């Protein structure tokens, strides 16, 4: 397992280098050389230009320029944004990254879970009405024109029904005179929420792992889980954070739901196809023969092994779902990486745009790495051979 993780890590770092190189040369090849634009932009004062020229190594050859660029990238010196002058690109991206991370993670976990559960059900009930209905509805959402779907949902839930707040990250009125900055609260929210999530996972794992799923254990798990959540909420409200956290969460609901709606079908259909294969496996037949209850055969045998190819393609589709994330952030004015990328690109803020593009790649690579590890945990055959075992 350790060797597997290390070799994966090596691959990720290598890919990152190639990616950064590609981004660099791609932008070099653009008409109106990026460095020229840097120097020609009227927003950048004269004094800063000399500094920039030096920092970018413009007085040296192409190879040196490239090396300087790579060196700067790994030191976090991505230059200064034009549109947010004089904020360094690094600062802006560091502020935005956690927001993208939270949105991306929540939506993906949710959509994977929904897709997994539904795929499991429709594969088990293949050829019934629910199979056709879920497939057609799923494909429709999957291929829906995303920006428009976002607009329609905003229009329905925020504009017409007024159930959820319109766009953005926070409600400015509420935050006037707030004793915290939005970023501080968001930080608490991420760490606190992360801790609670890990706690819940550990509780459920301890009580319900494998064969322990008795009625008493289920009750105990739910009980201690609720206690944990209650304690966390109480702590937040004592610190006066609760109302602000609630505001942020409220603003998250619509983008997360939209992202889930548009992407669950991918997992669902894959899960269905993959499970149609596993239900024909001998061990599923054997599980039936063992007299195990139907749901256990479905979940622990057919679905549990069918999940593996689904995770693989989840990994493969990370990049395209990142694109979905960009659209989401733009449509919902969620100030994350994607929105920065889009706005800076339209505002010809090249340092910020390249920085955001490079960071998107870094983000993706990390997600890719995590998914690879997850895959090895799910399939004991992987770490053993280093390769997914051939089925059958």
């Amino acid at each position: 397992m350790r060797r597997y993780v290390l070799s994966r890590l090596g691959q990720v770092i290598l890919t990152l280098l190639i990616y950064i190189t590609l981004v660099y040369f791609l932008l070099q090849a653009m008409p109106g050389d990026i460095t020229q634009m840097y120097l020609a932009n009227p927003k950048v004062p004269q004094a800063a230009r000399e500094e920039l020229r030096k920092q970018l190594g413009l007085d040296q050859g192409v190879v040196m320029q490239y090396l300087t660029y790579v060196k700067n990238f790994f030191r976090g010196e991505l230059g200064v944004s034009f549109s947010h002058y004089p904020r360094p690109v690094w600062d802006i991206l560091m502020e935005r990254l956690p927001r993208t991370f939270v949105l991306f993670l929540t939506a993906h976990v949710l959509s994977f879970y929904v897709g997994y559960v539904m795929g499991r059900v429709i594969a088990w009930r293949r050829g019934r009405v629910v199979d056709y209905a879920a497939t057609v509805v799923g494909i429709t959402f999957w291929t829906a024109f995303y920006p428009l779907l976002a607009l329609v949902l905003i229009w329905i839930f925020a504009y017409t029904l007024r159930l959820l707040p319109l766009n953005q990250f926070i409600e400015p009125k509420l935050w006037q005179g707030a004793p915290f900055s939005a970023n501080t609260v968001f930080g608490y929210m991420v760490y606190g929420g992360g801790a609670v999530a890990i706690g819940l996972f550990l509780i459920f794992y301890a009580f319900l792992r494998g064969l322990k799923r008795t009625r008493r254990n289920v009750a105990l798990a739910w009980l201690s889980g609720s206690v944990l959540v209650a304690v966390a909420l109480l702590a937040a409200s004592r610190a006066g954070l609760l109302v602000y956290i609630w505001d942020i969460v409220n603003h998250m609901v619509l983008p997360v739901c939209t992202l889930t709606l548009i992407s669950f079908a991918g997992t669902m259909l894959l899960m269905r196809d993959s499970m149609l294969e596993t239900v024909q496996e001998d061990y599923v037949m054997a599980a039936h023969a063992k007299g195990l209850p139907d749901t256990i055969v479905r979940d622990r045998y057919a679905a549990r092994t069918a999940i593996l190819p689904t995770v693989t393609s989840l990994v493969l589709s990370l990049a395209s779902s990142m694109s979905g994330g960009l659209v989401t952030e733009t449509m919902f004015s969620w100030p994350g990486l994607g929105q920065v990328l889009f706005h800076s690109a339209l505002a010809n803020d090249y340092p910020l745009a390249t920085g955001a593009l490079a960071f998107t790649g870094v983000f993706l690579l990390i997600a890719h790495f995590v998914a690879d590890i997850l895959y090895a945990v799910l399939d004991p055959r992987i770490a053993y051979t280093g390769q997914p075992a051939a089925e059958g």
Partner: protein
Amino acid sequence: MRGLSQNWAVFRESRIGMLGLIVILLFGVFGALWPIMINTVWDPLIYHPVVGFDPMLLHPSPPTKAHLLGTDPIGRDILAQLMFSTGREFLLGVLSALITVVIGTVIGTVAAYYGGFTDTFFMRVADIMMLFPFIPLLVVVGSMVRLTFFPFAIILGVLGGFGGITIILKAQALSVKVRPYIDAARVAGGSSFHIIRAHIIPNVLPLSFLYMMFNVTGAILSEATLSFFGVLNIDMSWGMMIHTAEAAGYLFDFGKYWWLWLPSGLAITLFCAAFYMVGRGLDEVVNPRLRKR
């Protein structure tokens, strides 16, 4: 390899696939109506999708007898735009998907046949391509050089061609390569080129064709998204129609100006869903394991 008619028989059993095929055919008819309409019924001055203008109405005008789906903020007929764009979407989707699939098939079969360095190289390239966030990249690139229709279709096709599809098609080609008749052909003195062309590619093609369907969906959606964000230089497309409405600020009052976004939005979704469904129908032809026993 089974014959065409047998494959058709299997495909016909897939309700999802047939549904998709019917929708595509309807779109085909709809798009084919465009040249007829503009040459006979419609006055090009009024109904031209890009430069037409109807001086008789205030714009955007809700549906009327003259403009069955209303007009856009600058006085162009929505129905005419929709019809005109249909053909272009077919062209864009099929062209870029074709490029993707041709590149993917060639690389996949060559990598599988020769193995070694060629194989490793292209597979690593595909790994990296799969990590590339294309839409953000194209947003950045598009904001620098406004891409026009054909360059955009070609870029989309080429970028896709080196990506994940090569891995899938290579796996398929590998499974063909180990079959005995390939050895037989080699022993019989067939050249590498001949074996790849005559034996491996025909066996990979059904899968290529299947992925072509999915790629059409991807290409159209990419075009619509980028058009919507205004980073493409395409005169008219379904995405552009929504972009026009959005840029003019009409999408804030959604319900009132429904004709500005609903027809084009529906067209994108239906069109893409149809290709996707045909892809799933083909999946049941290509992968017997998905079929009902």
